């Protein structure tokens, strides 16, 4: 489901002395099926922006269309419920929203509210749990969410939103506070949801490594304004603009820029269209530094080995 934002502005507490403009004249389009990242420091307006996507906030001025639904001040009733079902929103530390006594009841809450009952509801719950790589057997459904590990709790919360079968999933800082294993499991779930179920993903983050790993489109906000937009390679190449937003470019991209700045890459080919991985960057750097790039790695490996 595509999201089109046109000249969107949002003012908190309008008409009062402490009115604060959180978004100013933001225009962007998130195409169907992409994984878009919205990046910016705390207070840049990124959370305010995504809360428009499922109608939690309404534009002060400007337009926003999610699929064929226009999010306006008047949106309500069945159309709003439909929008909230189509756009799943997962807040930061979503495990804090778990409330039911069992995993099953918690995941079932959303779809039940949307009218699903009986066998269909049970099947939906199991599907959602399987989608986040959790066991879907009766024993697990009967467990208390509070007895699970941090990473599992977060995926139960994700399942609770997925159980609505949204077409778009918005995640605010999805991996904050998770350890390596839990984080990798979460990334695997998200990648699978996108490739197998065709979900459009919107990730709000200030972790640029995470953005570089998951997203293909990046929007950078600062002081409520859209500063950068484009594919991740294009955005990450604009180092100074990223720093001006108060963000750190992904470490690999930053290493490459610094190496270039200090004249290390003069001998290298200008090949930089592909996504940077430790492997590709190591190749680039090594070929720039070595005069005989083909022999040295072999020798080096020998030395490490023996």
């Amino acid at each position: 489901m595509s999201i089109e934002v046109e000249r969107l502005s949002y003012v908190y507490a309008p008409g009062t002395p402490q009115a604060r403009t959180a978004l100013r004249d933001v225009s962007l389009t998130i195409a169907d099926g992409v994984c878009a990242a919205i990046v910016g420091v705390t207070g840049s307006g990124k959370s305010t922006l995504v809360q428009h996507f499922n109608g939690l906030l309404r534009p002060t001025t400007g337009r926003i269309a999610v699929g064929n639904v226009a999010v306006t001040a008047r949106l309500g009733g069945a159309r709003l419920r439909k929008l909230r079902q189509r756009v799943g929103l997962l807040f930061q530390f979503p495990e804090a929203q778990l409330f039911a006594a069992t995993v099953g009841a918690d995941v079932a809450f959303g779809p039940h509210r949307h009218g699903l009952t009986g066998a269909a509801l049970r099947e939906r719950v199991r599907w959602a749990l399987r989608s986040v790589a959790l066991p879907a057997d009766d024993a697990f459904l009967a467990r208390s969410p509070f007895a699970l590990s941090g990473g599992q709790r977060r995926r139960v919360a994700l399942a609770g939103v997925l159980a609505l079968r949204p077409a778009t999933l918005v995640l605010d800082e999805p991996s904050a506070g998770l350890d390596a294993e839990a984080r990798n499991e979460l990334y695997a779930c998200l990648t699978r949801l996108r490739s197998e179920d065709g979900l459009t993903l919107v990730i709000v983050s200030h972790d640029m490594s995470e953005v570089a790993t998951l997203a293909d489109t990046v929007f950078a906000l600062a002081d409520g304004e859209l500063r950068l937009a484009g594919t991740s390679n294009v955005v990450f190449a604009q180092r100074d603009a990223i720093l001006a937003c108060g963000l750190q470019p992904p470490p690999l991209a930053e290493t490459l820029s610094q190496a270039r700045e200090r004249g290390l890459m003069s001998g290298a080919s200008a090949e930089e269209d592909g996504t940077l991985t430790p492997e590709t960057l190591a190749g680039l750097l090594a070929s720039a530094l070595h005069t005989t790039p083909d022999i040295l790695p072999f020798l080096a490996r020998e030395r490490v080995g023996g």
Partner: protein
Amino acid sequence: MLENLPIGMYAPGESLVHHLRARTKLVLLIWLALALFFANHHYFHYGVYALTGALLLAAVALARISPRYLLRRMRLLLLLIAIGSPFSLIWTTGTTWHTFNLSTLSLHGLTLPIQIVVTYDGLWFTFTFAAILLLLYLGTMLLTLTTTPVALAEGIVLLLRPLRWLHLPADEFGLMTLVALRFVPTLLQEADQLIKAQVSRGADFTTGSPRARVRGVATLIVPLIQGALRRAGDLSAALEARGYGVMGQATLLHEGRLRLLDWALLVIVPALTLLLYFKL
């Protein structure tokens, strides 16, 4: 700037009301509360109520607190009083003040009058009850609006200190007050975030059937309590790490000696209320 301040918050200022010591304000508030309750036994003597009302309104004006903000905060209480008053007017027995004949009802040839009897007791009781609620609520709001939580906590500690021999934990009570006031905005923010999260997955708080709303509220209670408990646990560790309860008597940061204005009010207000109560 007050418009969006949640209840229990401090609004910085430099007025005379702000400069009064927290203990002065606490003692006056408690004194006036007692005076209002006792004055309730003195039928149709408005003196104490008028004095309290005048004092509080003067304080509102001096502290430059917008009446609109106060009214907004008092809306719920006003509504409750509006709903409750008719019942207390009708259902209090005593000497009749006035009988309202509404209509008559004919039943098997008998004509029965439908009338509402309002007694003097009903009138006085309704008036005093509403006045006590409104004035005390206003007074408490003024207290927290014009006193920093630290000063308030220190005031409570100082006032309770003489009662230590009863093993009354004065310092702990002060800290409890401070922490409670300190965490109001944090917990409100947490609740706001949680409401949005649950709404996003289908909960209903404002529309829908009463059943749906009850279910909606149920999705908030467990997470909110869990969050508050987690914070309380972290906070107690942090307080311990910062040396709470390790030693001795605390230094007072805000509550200094009482000044002339404090003494003046502490003498004049009780004297006036006593005069009004016994002589007028």
